[in-house]
């Protein structure tokens, strides 16, 4: 059998050593510093992540005027929030919110790879990068969503957005029933990256 059909032994240990070696060489050669990698990792834990998108959605749920502004000019509406600087940073230079309603369900995909709105949602999860998801979501989005546990009524129109140029999309999901008295903070806590990419509904409890 060809080598092409085999993985190296100790696949993860090998990759870990390979990457550590790469980082060490880059430090030794004065390309990066020994802190650069940890700082980047930390940035996505504290400053950029799905916690930002959750706040934007929660605000849109409680403030119809904000929602209208968000759908019309997403970057301007995001800039109104009290976020760390960087919301128009890498992979957020152009972002666009699309709204789910009782008649329309949106699903985001990047069939060419993994474009994703980093400042608001952080980094893409594995399902989003899965070649099967990228192959099937454009051709049979209802079947894919059903596998994810989201069954759509036949009357609902599905819109699939393929992020192939400058825009990074995210979904403004429907506010779930039973959240009438919730604060913005409580609402934000209900949101998941999956809901903000159209792969799940927002659930209470």
């Amino acid at each position, binding site marked *: 059998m060809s080598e*092409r059909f085999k*993985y190296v032994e100790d696949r993860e240990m*090998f*990759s*870990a*050593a390979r990457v*550590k*070696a*790469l*980082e060490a*060489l*880059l*430090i*030794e*050669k004065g*390309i*990066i*510093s*020994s*802190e*650069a*990698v*940890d*700082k*980047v990792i930390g*940035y996505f834990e504290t400053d950029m992540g799905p916690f930002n998108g959750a706040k934007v959605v929660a605000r849109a749920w409680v403030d119809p005027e904000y929602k209208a502004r968000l759908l019309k000019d997403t970057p301007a509406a995001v800039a109104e929030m009290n976020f760390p600087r*960087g919301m*128009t940073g*890498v992979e957020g*230079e152009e972002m666009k919110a699309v709204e789910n309603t009782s008649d329309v369900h949106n699903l985001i995909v990047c*069939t*060419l790879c993994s474009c994703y709105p980093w400042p608001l949602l952080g*980094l*893409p*999860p*594995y*399902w989003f*990068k899965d*070649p*099967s998801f990228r*192959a*099937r*979501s*454009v*051709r*049979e989005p209802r079947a*894919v969503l059903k*596998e*994810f546990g989201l069954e759509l009524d036949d*009357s*609902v*129109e*599905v*819109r699939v957005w*393929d992020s*192939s*140029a400058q*825009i990074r999309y995210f979904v403004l999901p429907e506010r779930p029933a039973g959240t009438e008295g919730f604060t913005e903070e409580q609402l934000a806590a209900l949101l998941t*990256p*999956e809901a903000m990419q159209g792969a799940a509904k927002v659930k209470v409890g």
Partner: protein
Amino acid sequence: MKLQQYLGGLEGLNDPIDFDTRVFAEPWEKRIFAIHVSMMGLSNHLEGIQDIPSNFDSKYTWADLRERAESMHPFDYFKFRYYEKWVGGVADFLIKGGYINEEEWDAKTAVYLNNADEQLPSVSEPAIDHQVIEYLRKGDSLYRESDRKPQFSAGETVLVRNNHVMLHTRLPGFVRSQKGVIEIVYEGNYTYPNSTGTDGIGEPMPVYCVRFDPKDIWGEHVESKSMIYVDIYEAYMDKLAQ
């Protein structure tokens, strides 16, 4: 054509999708991700980069990693996990750029394989760290002011071209040679970090959001009531013959 550029709609990948919500599957994946981001943040096309004390002196952007992912043997593309592909892509750029060589990479790998606790070298350079985070915050927008006016208008039906791709494209295979309706004409022009040659992008040009009916692409048997929206550079579009 390359299979990786034609994934959308591809038949045969019918196993249930692994609804794995993890961003990283292994700790080392975080580090190759951050190495790639650091290199993009030190790319020599960025403003003010000349003052940063790094020995990296290449233009390095998403386009370079994407080119490499699309250049892979399709079997390897499916065989390897997402960040395994990144390791190969990032290392290929560094080797071809003369920053590292295979032998020293292999030797260093052996050191860490023999002793996973062996520490990384310690060389602080706060100016590099600051630059990388600043890059993340500022971004690297593809937007360009330009006199080039869009040749198509909202509501118009257009024909998507099928330009020959030698290396890299931003046009998904499933919309090639298809008719679509322009939903949005984006304001301004957008460039691409690298020229894609015969594929046609790289210079500032208008970009459109184009709507496609999956029934036009795959036939009447596909699911009802769905639409696909794809952002498409003007170089990928033709007027519809009357």
